């Protein structure tokens, strides 16, 4: 098991009733997909709010950032960067910047 730091956007933290970063334990291989699987298992109210039911397609207004990179267009089954796996950096679930 690997423990990954996950930083959620403010709306998602409110919905899940959590403060600050989360620490999510995932089975190998640690990927965006397995982190989200574990996140949704622990916080079922987040299902459907980051990626679609069924298809697991990332919602259009959501990006995944880590280590100064945008991971959104990588395969969700790619192993996470070493800095995320070591805990040096967090996987960030980021909402589009928008007003209104």
């Amino acid at each position, binding site marked *: 098991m690997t423990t990954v730091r996950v930083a959620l956007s*403010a709306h998602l933290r409110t919905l899940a009733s959590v403060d600050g970063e989360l620490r999510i334990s995932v089975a190998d291989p640690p990927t965006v997909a397995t982190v989200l699987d574990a996140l949704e298992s622990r916080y079922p109210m987040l299902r459907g709010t980051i990626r679609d039911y069924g298809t697991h397609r990332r919602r259009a207004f*959501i990006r995944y950032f880590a280590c100064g990179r945008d991971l959104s267009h990588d395969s969700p089954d790619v192993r996470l960067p070493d800095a995320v796996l070591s805990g040096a950096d967090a996987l960030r679930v980021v909402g*589009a910047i928008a007003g209104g």
Partner: protein
Amino acid sequence: MARVRVLVGTQKGAFVITSDGARRDWKIEGPHFGGWEVMHVQGSPADPERLYASQWTDWHGQVLQRSDDGGASWEPVGNEFTYEGVTGTHQWYDGTPHPWEFKRVWHLEPSPTDPDTIFAGVEDAALFRSTDGGLTWTELAGLRTHSTGQDWTPGAGGMCLHTVLIDPANDERMYVAISAAGAFRSDDGGASWNVATRGLSSTFLPEPEAPIGHCVHKLAMHPDRPDTVFMQKHWDVCRTDDAGESWTEVSGNLPSDFGFPIAVHTHEPDTIFVVPILSDSEHYPPEGKLRVYRSRSGGNEWEALTKGLPQQDCYVNVLRDAMAVDSLDSCGIYFGTTGGQIYASADAGDTWTAIAEHLPRVSSVEVQTIL
């Protein structure tokens, strides 16, 4: 003493506004789900402490919330709305086929008798039902898979199922309305549906009296007269007295028959309320005067209700789910505006008071009368 609880959905959260039965002093609580667009908040007639709320954003999609203590606390429930079977296509704005895609829940309609049973009208148009308090949802697919479904088109706001009416004496009978497909009736609890648009005419259609394509904005029904349904259409106010078999226009002397909400007096089944706006392209009141129009004859003859409402320089709108009545002896009526005001009348519209003035754009208003 009776209490009144006004449930308000806005573009940036939900609010609960309460008063005793005198309806003079109001307390505003909220926002709940701050920052989220709240499409609708609705209470169970069978258990007034049971509330449901539909919250939504482009970022995170649909979330359904439930309260078991009258809105003091909330918990997220099920938000998986999956269409049954093979998903076909409807028409897109340009007339090309477009696959059905779930976007959000526009309207929540609880069962009159069971607090755990609730219907959800969604975009793209379909009807879902939960029988476990909102934890899980099942589509009543007979509506979406109706033989006309491939010809349904969205209104500019999306192809939304925004009205669900249930006959309280016969829950097998239901009406729904969809922008811009039209109105439908079921006599078997939602399993199958018939088009209920005969008599409607929409001049924007290639065939104005076609069965499909009418942009119905809202339906309203008095529970004692379930065969009589009133309709605010894209243009025209209409009524049916034969359960949707035929419709008659009753716009009469309205200054404009364009509008969104329509409501029926709690104790007078032929007293109805609308809020005219200028036109399909100018969604604000004629002459800058916010006027509710009341008909005591079920339409055709209308009177303007203005006392307490702004009568100059007012350019707000009232959206389709943003008007409701209470059930106290002197019927109260409430509506919310796109400018964030909630107006209330404790005398069936004769006089009005703003009970909230600075909320976000109001999406929905419902009222619970708690005895």
